[in-house]
């Protein structure tokens, strides 16, 4: 019999909410993030989700002085079946994409 004693490291920051989209039908199979890498030249953090989205974060200090990771770009890596497309915005600068997922994405 052997015993070991571990003293934990400190978690100095944790995101309060997740930016990973939730599909209610497959909620049990969701796995959140699958990969993360720090980008060079202080371009922030890149996280990859289980449904093949690329989330780009940059560190930011809010007005009240608290730290947060701000999501500044989301790339959809997999759309499955695209059902409809529509230009939106005052100058139609965005493209809304309806797929057979529950979320409507735009770019």
């Amino acid at each position, binding site marked *: 019999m052997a015993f070991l004693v571990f003293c934990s490291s*400190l*978690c100095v920051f944790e995101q309060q909410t997740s930016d990973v989209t939730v599909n209610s039908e497959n909620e049990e199979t969701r*796995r*959140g993030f699958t*990969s993360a890498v720090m980008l060079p030249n202080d371009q922030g953090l890149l996280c990859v989700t289980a449904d093949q989205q690329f989330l780009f*974060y940059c560190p930011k200090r809010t007005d009240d002085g608290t730290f947060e990771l701000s999501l500044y770009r989301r790339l959809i890596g997999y759309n499955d079946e695209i059902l409809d497309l529509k230009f939106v915005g005052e100058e139609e600068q965005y493209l809304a994409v309806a797929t057979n997922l529950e979320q409507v994405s735009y770019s």
Partner: protein
Amino acid sequence: MNFDISNIGIYCGVHFLCGVTGYSECMEHLQIVTAWDIRKYSSKKTIPTYEMIEAVSFIGSGSELLACLGIELANIKEKAASYFLTVGERGVVRIWCLERYNSLYLHPLLFFAYFCSTCNQWLFWSSAVRFACSSSKHLM
């Protein structure tokens, strides 16, 4: 102390940090991150994360991310590879400090490991003991 830990979990990620003597790996099954000293081939620290970890990444000492966190560069020069982040099934980013001694505002927890000869694996559990500060004289 030498022991074989190859049978206690599935490794799901490894991350090296150039220029220092360590790398970290995460075990999906046991929900832990282990930091290793690759020069001595020994583990430096085991961190329970309470989450299925999918990836781990060191944060460089000159990173803007640490500056935004309010961590002084002068404080981490002596302790390179002190900060890393983890992501996993919860879909949130968590940032960890590897050296618990350089901060007093959070309370560390004490963790135990027990090798069960019946099931031939290490079992982990934590106590509810909290410490008023990180000094080792308060560990008992």
